[in-house]
């Protein structure tokens, strides 16, 4: 569910490091638009069916192969698309590394043909980013005028009837978040200084993403929550899927960091992913032993960083092959976030699960040495 594909450096051209989704997959979008004869909501580039197909992949009637942008349950993408079609805003929740941003970018690219209307939420995001600001030089020179107004991405999306993305909504201070309430319910944005009002065109909608692990950062008020359809993106279903995601990502990161570690024979990946999955789900893979879950997230993203760490250790201090010793420290570090409770959880896991697996003796020993 983390995006499995590495952006193709050739696509997009012009030597940019990372092309926008709508540029990178322009051919697929065009092919979909060609065969798509189903009804489209106002100002949608594609029908809901075609948007779903674009995200989940498939083969079109004319033989074009659409790559899967999201690997996971079909119903989630269907719910997301249906939400956008009902003019209710969509909130994608999930732990880090569940492809929230990736999905929102591709949804915007497929629905509105552009993924560039985006507000990055930070603790310093001001109301101007959601409503409008002023070009002060002009304001002083000419007085308040439409030309002196600096429109936010949200305002531009309202005027053009397209999707706007708000990343990390819960990082935005609560009083700034509140600016969204009237935009979402009345679909209009008044500019009292100029005595005018921008009314959203049909097709306007908001996709927000938020991390549901960071409790209490700036929790959404219930008034705002009520205006969103909430969709929780889960972690990958199967071990194989997750191992594959970790493998491709670690390979990509390793290349960019120029780590010569031997990636093909990285059997440690399967082990790390298995440990994380078992601790996360609270039960071993064979469903026989229940284990406690630590307070840490242990998402796919964490498995990726443990493996990257391990391959860096192996490359610089070992013979390039990642072994139990290289990952033990970072696994322990990833699992034990709370020094008291998590340590018990981890020790219990070591004693009741890892110890009983004969082929894991090396890992058990490596972890015991650290404990």
């Amino acid at each position, binding site marked *: 569910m983390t995006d499995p594909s590495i952006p193709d450096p050739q696509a997009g051209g012009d030597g940019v490091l990372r092309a926008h989704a709508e540029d990178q997959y322009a051919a697929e979008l065009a092919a979909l638009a060609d065969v798509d004869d189903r009804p489209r909501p106002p100002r949608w580039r594609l029908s*809901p*069916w075609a948007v779903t197909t674009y995200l989940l992949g498939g083969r079109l009637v004319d033989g074009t192969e659409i790559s899967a942008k999201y690997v996971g349950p079909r119903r989630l993408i269907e719910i997301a698309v249906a939400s956008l*079609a009902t003019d*209710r805003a969509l909130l994608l929740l999930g732990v880090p590394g569940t492809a929230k941003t990736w999905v929102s970018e591709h949804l915007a690219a497929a629905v509105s043909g552009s993924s560039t209307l985006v507000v990055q939420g930070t603790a310093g995001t001001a109301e101007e980013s959601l409503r409008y600001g002023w070009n002060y030089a002009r304001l002083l020179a000419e007085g308040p005028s439409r030309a002196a107004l600096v429109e936010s991405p949200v305002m531009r999306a309202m005027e053009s009837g397209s999707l706007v993305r708000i990343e990390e909504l819960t990082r935005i201070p609560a009083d700034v978040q509140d600016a969204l309430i009237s935009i979402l319910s009345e679909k209009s944005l008044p500019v009292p200084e100029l005595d005018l009002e921008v009314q959203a065109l049909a097709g306007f909608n908001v996709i927000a993403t938020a991390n549901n692990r960071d409790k209490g950062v700036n929790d959404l008020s219930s008034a705002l929550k*009520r205006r969103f*359809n*909430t969709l929780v993106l889960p972690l990958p279903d199967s071990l194989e899927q997750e191992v594959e995601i970790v493998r491709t990502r670690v390979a990509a990161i390793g290349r960019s960091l120029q780590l010569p570690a031997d990636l093909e024979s990285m059997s440690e990946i399967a082990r790390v992913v298995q440990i994380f999955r078992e601790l996360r789900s609270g039960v071993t893979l064979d469903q026989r032993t229940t284990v*406690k879950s630590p307070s840490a997230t242990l998402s796919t993203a964490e498995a990726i960083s443990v493996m990257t760490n391990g391959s860096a250790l192996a490359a610089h201090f070992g013979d390039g092959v990642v072994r139990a010793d290289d990952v033990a420290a970072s696994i322990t570090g990833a699992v034990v976030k709370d020094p008291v409770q998590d340590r*018990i959880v981890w*020790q219990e896991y070591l004693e009741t699960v890892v110890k009983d697996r004969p082929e894991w003796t090396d890992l058990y020993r490596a972890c015991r040495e650290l404990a």
Partner: protein
Amino acid sequence: MTTTRVEVLGIRHHGPGSARSLLGALDELEPEVLVIEGAPELDALVASAADANLVPPVAALAYAAETPRRAVFYPLAVFSPEWVALRWAAARGVPVRFADLPAAHVLAGDERAEVGRRTDPIGALAQAAGYDDAERWWEDAVEHRSGSSLESFAAIREAMAEVRAASDDEDDENLVREAAMRRVLRAVVKEGPARVAVVCGAYHAPALHPDAWPPATQDTKRLAGLPRTKVAVTWAPWTANRLALASGYGAGVRSPGWYQHLFVSWQQHDEVVTGWLSRVARALRDEGLDASPAGVVEATRMAEALAAVRARPSVGLSELSDATQTVLCGGSDLPLRLIDERLVIGEDLGRVPDTVPLTPLAQDLARLQRSLRVKPTASTSSITLDLRKEAQRERSVLLHRLRLLGVPWGRPTDAGRSTGTFKEAWDLRWEPELAVGLIEAGLYGTTVHEAAEAKLVEDAGSAPDLATLGRMVGECLTADLPRGLAAVVDTLAERTAHQHDVLALLEAIEPLARTQRYGDVRGADTRKVAGVLHIVVTRAAVGLRAACASLDDDAAAAMRRAVDAADRGVALVELASVTDPWRAAVLAVSADDRIHGLVAGRANRLLLDRGALGSDDVARRMSRRLSLGADAVAGAAWLDGFLEGDPLLLLHDPALLGLVDTWVAGAEESTFEDLLPLLRRTFSRFDAAARRQIGVRLRRPDAEHGPAPTDLDLDRGLPAALTVAEILGLARVDAS
């Protein structure tokens, strides 16, 4: 035969859409006789079907009279077409006949009766049409199509004939059953009614249509020579939850509550979607979750948009669940589980009138009472059972099982002065309300054994804490329920993993250890228990040190009791894999000066008693804990934990006694006043003789080993010493 019109109405078992169409068809046809799919033995139940006290969900139940364990259930809900047909006939006085392979044959087979292996052909048709909910397909494809319900049933029959023609795996069982159904039909037709309606699973419809009847002789041949057994029938109360079980009619339904909602909404011409979401919102509000009317409106729009995205002509349960989760539950699936339990499955409990025949469970009990020779009497009678004797042990097992089932016919009383575990005393008294309990218990199974086991398994799943589960492990042993034991132990294993509370883990150790040690006597499989015990001890050992940190006095007292109990349990099993981690954990606790004295003192005593710690080490620790620099009250607590139990320790180890004495003597007067109540409590637990001896010893510290024997009469003592030596098995040394 030419004068009789036979209409075959192929329905979907438990299909509310079918039930609704069926009502229309019956009103249209007005049959003089109604034939329903089901074992012909069920005819005996038709009369009671009209009783207003028979409230679905109920199950028509056919069971082998000799072995009630073997039974076929035909569960019926309000929305089941068979139920609708039964009630329709009862209201109009139309005779009903059941047609299927007689249960007498089904239950006579070698294996356990398995009639649930039926397909859902209408579900297959619906799936082919792109529906995941066959009921929505029925509504769209059948209900909204034609004016006449009879015509739509004819269309279904033709479609099903195509389905059957396409698949050539006619299985033998179906052919025999259909032959049996036709045999009943022929008998009905012979009586010459003008119109007959046949209500059967859609799959059988083509084979039962009069045009398709083979010669009667062919059917007779097929039915010849089947084994038979004596069968009894009755109604049993059922629950919505159990409708999901596969037995009798079809493969069970996963969403009885939803089906009931569909059926009732259709009957009352209500909106299905908004009606459902309003009920969802109300259920959420009952649980204190926000669900505003505006949210219901949004959820309705969302469900409709989803159906459009999925290219479905109407909203189904999956769209409603998705819309509920996204709009009303903030993406969380926890409230959705509540909705599943409350609404999608439902919490309905069926009722049967008092007049129906005895349930198989009651019959099984009567049989057991006869064979074990214990009569139910209205007055109290006391019995004492010797568990070493087979027959008496079986009685004890029966009484324990009945208690588990909520039928406390016997109450255990004190077995008298005997300390042995092989004796049990019971007060027996049969009260009328126990019969009611027996009917309720009938939900769990058809025999006392089976029902007790099923109830135990269910209770294990909903047990609130580890202590309850630990107790249930014991109950499994006394009631001789090995399968129940397996389930309880599994649940226990799972719970211990989620249990962050070391105290609860410690408390689970003793009952488990007891089971492992003594379970063999009752023939239970103790390997699994051993596995769980191992895990529990390991987990408790890992967490013990942390759990003992920063305890207040009350918590420390509870922890000391738990550690004591756990240690008793560990001592029972004597397995290195269990003992070693435990000892190591206790050792860590005993050596830590920051741990509350009650617990640390106790840990030291346990290790001393088990020989894991030398008395020198202990003396050093005691001296450290009782030294002047340390807090005196904490020292008293340590002493309290250490000294609890046998006082002989102080009498036989003068070094320890000396330490205590010096410490008390050296305490400042103000400190001593604080110490006094604590010390008094510690020492008052010893009996008077021990206290006196300690006092004597302290008054004469020079006496090394107790009051020195001054005038021993060796000759008088010799015989006693010899006898003791013999008991101990010591070799006799020549007196010279």
